[in-house]
C-alpha cells in the first residue's frame, strides 16, 4: 500500500495519474477513501469489492465516524455472514464525487486550496468505476473474485462487468437496472431542485458560510426516501397514526407519524451528507445507460463475457422493479452468459436490499461459495 495512508481509522490512497472522465475533463490528484475487512490471501484470490449506493459510503461493516451507527451492510458483511470476512478480503471505496473523503465537490481542489463546489466536473457511474479500478491497481489487486452492490452500487457492479470483464470473476447486482428510467430521473430532479431552491445553497458556494443548504438537502432526502419504500411498507410502519398526540392539531405540524419519520430522515441526513455531492451523484445515476453509452443493444454489451452474474430483485421495489432485472437477464441469456436470477418476495420496497432479508442472504452466500471453485485468482 505505497500511497495508502492510515488516518484516524480511515484509509486513503492517491491515484498516481490523472483520471480521465467521460465528460472529456480529467481530474488530477484524485484521493480515494476506503475501508477493508478481512485478510487478503497471499495469492490475492479472495478480494471482493463492494459498491455503495447513492447515500452510502465506505463504512460498509464498521461504525460510521459521524453518526456512530453500525455499517450500512453490517447484516451482510462480516465474520460468518454471507459476504464472509473470514473468507474474503472486502474492500469498499467511497465513490468519486462522494463526501466521505474521496475527491468530490466538498473536498479541497488542490489547484485552488478551496473546496471544488460546482467547479467539480460532472461525473458518471463509469468514472466512479474507473477510479475504483485505478485504486485497486494501487492496492496491487489485479483481479477481483466478486463485485457486489445494490441500487447505484448495482449500477457500478454492472459497469464493472461491462468495462473490466477480465478483472472480475463474479458479480452480484442487486435491486438495480441497466439504465435509469424517466421516473427515476424525475424524482432525482425534484431532489436537485429542492437543494437549488434553498437560498443557503448559494450556487454551490456555501462551504465557507455559516449556514448550509440543509433545508433543501433534507427535502431532497425526504422525497427520495419515499421512493425507497413501498406503499405497503409505509402503511405497515405508520398507517395514519398520529405522532405524540391523539387528535389533529389543525396546524401544519408533523401530526402524522409518517411526517415525523420523514422529517427525521431529512434532518439526520444533512449531518453526514453534502448537498453538492447529492447533485453530482444523482446526476451520475441519471446518465447511466449501459447500452446507450456503447451504442449497441444491451445483449452486445456482454457478448462473450466470462463473468458470472447473480441478479437479485424484490417484488415490491418500484424504483428498480423486477422488469428491469429481467431485461438484464434476457440480454445475458441472449449471449449465453452465466446468469442466475432470483426475485425475492418482500413488502419493503427498494430498501429491502439493506434489510434483514434471509432469502437474499442465502442467495448471495450460495452464489459466492458456488463461484469459488471456478476462480483461478489473480
Amino acid at each position, binding site marked *: 500500500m505505497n500511497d495508502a495512508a492510515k488516518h484516524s481509522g480511515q484509509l486513503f490512497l492517491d491515484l498516481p495519474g490523472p483520471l480521465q472522465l467521460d465528460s472529456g475533463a480529467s481530474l488530477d490528484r484524485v484521493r480515494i477513501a476506503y475501508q477493508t475487512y478481512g485478510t487478503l490471501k497471499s495469492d490475492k484470490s479472495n478480494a471482493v469489492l463492494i459498491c455503495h449506493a447513492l447515500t452510502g459510503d465506505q463504512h460498509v461493516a464498521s461504525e460510521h465516524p459521524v453518526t456512530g451507527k453500525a455499517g450500512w451492510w453490517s447484516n451482510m458483511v462480516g465474520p460468518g455472514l454471507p459476504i464472509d470476512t473470514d473468507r474474503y478480503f472486502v474492500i469498499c471505496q467511497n465513490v468519486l464525487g462522494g463526501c466521505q473523503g474521496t475527491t468530490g465537490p466538498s473536498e479541497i481542489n488542490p489547484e485552488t486550496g478551496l473546496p471544488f463546489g460546482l467547479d467539480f466536473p460532472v461525473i458518471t457511474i463509469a468514472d466512479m468505476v474507473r477510479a475504483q479500478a485505478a485504486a485497486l491497481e494501487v492496492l496491487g489487486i489485479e483481479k477481483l473474485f466478486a463485485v457486489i452492490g445494490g441500487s447505484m452500487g448495482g449500477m457500478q457492479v454492472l459497469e464493472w462487468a461491462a468495462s473490466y470483464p477480465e478483472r472480475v470473476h463474479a458479480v452480484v447486482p442487486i435491486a438495480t437496472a441497466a439504465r435509469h428510467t424517466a421516473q427515476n430521473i424525475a424524482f432525482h430532479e425534484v431532489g436537485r431542485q429542492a437543494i437549488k431552491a434553498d437560498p443557503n445553497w448559494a450556487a454551490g458556494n456555501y462551504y465557507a458560510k455559516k449556514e448550509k443548504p440543509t433545508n433543501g438537502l433534507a427535502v431532497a432526502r425526504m422525497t427520495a426516501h419515499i421512493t425507497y419504500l413501498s406503499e405497503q411498507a409505509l402503511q405497515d410502519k405508520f398507517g395514519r397514526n398520529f405522532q405524540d398526540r391523539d387528535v389533529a392539531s389543525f396546524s401544519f405540524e408533523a401530526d402524522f407519524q409518517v411526517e415525523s419519520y420523514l422529517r427525521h430522515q431529512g434532518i439526520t441526513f444533512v449531518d453526514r451528507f453534502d448537498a453538492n455531492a447529492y447533485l453530482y451523484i444523482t446526476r451520475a445515476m441519471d446518465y447511466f445507460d449501459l447500452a446507450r453509452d456503447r451504442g449497441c443493444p444491451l445483449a452486445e454489451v456482454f457478448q462473450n463475457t466470462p463473468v458470472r452474474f447473480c441478479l437479485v430483485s424484490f417484488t415490491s421495489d418500484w424504483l428498480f422493479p423486477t422488469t428491469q432485472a429481467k431485461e438484464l437477464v434476457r440480454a445475458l441469456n*441472449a449471449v449465453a452468459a452465466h446468469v442466475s436470477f432470483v426475485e425475492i418476495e418482500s413488502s419493503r420496497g427498494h430498501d429491502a436490499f439493506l434489510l434483514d432479508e434471509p*432469502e437474499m442472504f442465502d442467495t448471495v452466500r450460495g452464489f459466492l461459495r458456488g463461484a469459488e471453485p471456478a476462480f483461478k485468482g489473480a
Partner: protein
Amino acid sequence: MTETLRPDLKVIADFIAPDARLLDIGCGDGSLLAYLRDAANVDGRGMELSQSGVNACVAKGLTVVQGDADLDLKDYPTDAFDYVVLSQTLQATRNPKEVLQQLLRISHHVVVSFPNFGNWKVRLALLFKGRMPVTKSLDQPWYSTPNIHFCTIRDFMDLCNELNAQIEQSVSLNAAAHVRQINGSLAHANWIGEQAIFLLSRGGSSNAQPR
C-alpha cells in the same frame, strides 16, 4: 459427487451427450444439472419457478434463473442450446403446444417427460370408479393438482407429428421404474407406462442426430 438421481432423471441424463449446452426447465433443486455437470461436463442452465429451488441451485454453483416456462421461454435466442429438458412440467403449463414449439426453437434436441394419462390405472379409475384418478405419480385431487393439461403417449406423439418434431428416442417407465422402448409396442407402452420420456429433434433438418 455421486448423487442418486430419480429414475426418470437417470434416463434423461443418458440421453445427453457430454460437453453439451443444456437448459433444464423446472430444474427443481438442480439434481439433474449438478449430476450432468459433474458426470458429463455439461454446460447447464436452469429455469425454476420456486424461489427455494432457485436458491438451492445457486448454492450448488449452478446457473439458474427464476422463471415460468409459459412466459419466459420466448426470451431465449433461437438455437441457444444443444438440449433442453422439460421433465414432469409440460402437463402443468397453460399452453403445452406453444411451450413445445418454443423448446424446439431454442434447442436442437428436446427432452420431455410426462405422466401418461393412458396408463391402465387411470383408464380403470375412470371406467369403474367414474372418478378422476389419483395414483402414485398423480397424487393430487382434481381441484388442487397443478397438472392441467394431461395427455397420453399417443396424444403426445400426435402433437409431435403436428409440430413436425422428429422422435429420436422414446421410452416408458412402469410403476417399478422399469424402462422400456416405446418403439413397436405403442399400445402396450400406452397401457403399462406410468411415465414417458421422449427425445425430440426439430423435423426437416437432416443432421439432427443426437450427439
